[in-house]
């Protein structure tokens, strides 16, 4: 019979409850989960800081852009495929060769944010392997394949 999960609350004695409320939660967290959390913590803030810095460089004109910001209104109404074609923009990892232009510098922070999950999964993989947790080893490996495939840029879409 269905039972509410509230019934599964483990109620400590009143004194114990007061003590628990004032100290750190007594919940076991796997070490790899903590490492993953720290990768996200430092990586996400580094990514956001890089985004801010490179955007300031772009908007202030400290480094020459590929497309001047003032020209952007001519492009931002276009469909992405049309924009790529008309402005001769790189696709896939082509932006990496264009890092000399300030607009492409912004992609460093974005790529870092989008890469964090892949790094996190690579941290989880040895943990599940050592636990001989076959289903989760497979799930983690499959996810890495999916994310690397998405990141590789080998898959393309036909422009409409």
């Amino acid at each position, binding site marked *: 019979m269905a039972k509410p999960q509230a019934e599964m609350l483990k109620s400590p004695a009143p004194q114990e409850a007061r003590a628990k409320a004032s100290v750190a939660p007594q919940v*076991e967290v796997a070490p790899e989960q903590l490492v993953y959390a720290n990768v996200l913590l430092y990586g*996400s803030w580094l990514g956001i800081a890089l985004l801010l810095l490179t*955007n300031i460089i772009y908007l202030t004109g400290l480094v020459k852009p590929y497309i001047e910001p003032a020209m952007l209104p001519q492009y931002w109404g276009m469909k992405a495929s049309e924009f790529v074609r008309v402005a001769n923009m790189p696709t896939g990892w082509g932006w990496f060769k*264009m890092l000399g232009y300030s*607009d492409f510098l912004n992609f460093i922070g974005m790529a870092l944010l*989008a890469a964090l999950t892949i790094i996190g999964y690579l941290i989880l993989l040895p943990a599940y392997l050592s636990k001989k947790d076959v*289903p989760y080893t497979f799930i983690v490996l499959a996810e890495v394949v*999916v994310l690397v495939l998405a990141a590789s840029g080998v898959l393309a879409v036909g422009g409409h």
Partner: protein
Amino acid sequence: MLDWLAAFTGGGLAAKATAAVTTTGAAVSTAAGTPGIPWWVWPLLLFVTTFALGIVAVLGGVGGGVLFVPIVGSFFPFNLDFVRGAGLLVALAGALAAGPGLLKLNLANLRLALPVALIASTFSMVGAFIGLALPNDVVQTALGITIVLIAFLFVVSKNTEFPQVGGSDKLARFLKIGGTYYERSSGKTVDWSVWRTPQGFLLFIAIGIMAGMFGLGAGWANVPVLNLLMGAPLKVAVGTSKFLLSITDTSAAWVYLNQGAVLPVIAVPSIVGIMLGSFVGVRLLATAKPKAVKYLVIVLLLAAGLRSLLKGLGIWN
């Protein structure tokens, strides 16, 4: 001053690229949708708008992406491709920033999140390709319908703090999905498990496609499925959903990045605006009236959804 950069990129490539932009400049000038308005007005307006959206999103208990895409896509001159690309990065940055706290408190549960994330992220990649391949009016119309339906979902959906679970199913037992978290309000630890796992996993196929296709993030769909259908406690459902977005949106975000559908001038002010707004929203949370904010979110979604629908159908451009 920046010779190393020129050397890095190669002079030939740089000259070729600059020439390409100059020669096509005249050809694209007709595409300018907002003549007479200085370019910087739009990123500035975008920053102000996303700052406000960040506040409303926190107070309304919704993700920023679900408000960002329909509102910016309907009322700004940017193509929906770039708005969706920015929307995914907005949702991704928010999920990544929230992830560490959720993981450390065990409110984002890896045993629940990882299988669901594999399904959702695979199909969000598929959704991203579908969205980029379809004509704008089709995506805009479908987005409008989806947003109006989400608004109704917010009206009728009543999540349960501790749902009824009739015992774990075979798949949940095989994957050992379940866990424990500390409930600060009661000072107790809560053991939980899930059921109806196959049905839940199937729904995440649709959720993934919609997340990638519309760039919405998908917390609005994740939470009801994890909580109401699969029976995860509300806090675990919300925490796992937020963490899940960091994986689901990653695969779709890469597709948009690789296809040239991310413009930094749109994405960066949006990410910064929403994040700053979220910080202010958290501070206002103690004094806000949740019901009033929920109605505001519903009205905003309805307005943006209808505008998107009418724009997609060519009735109100």
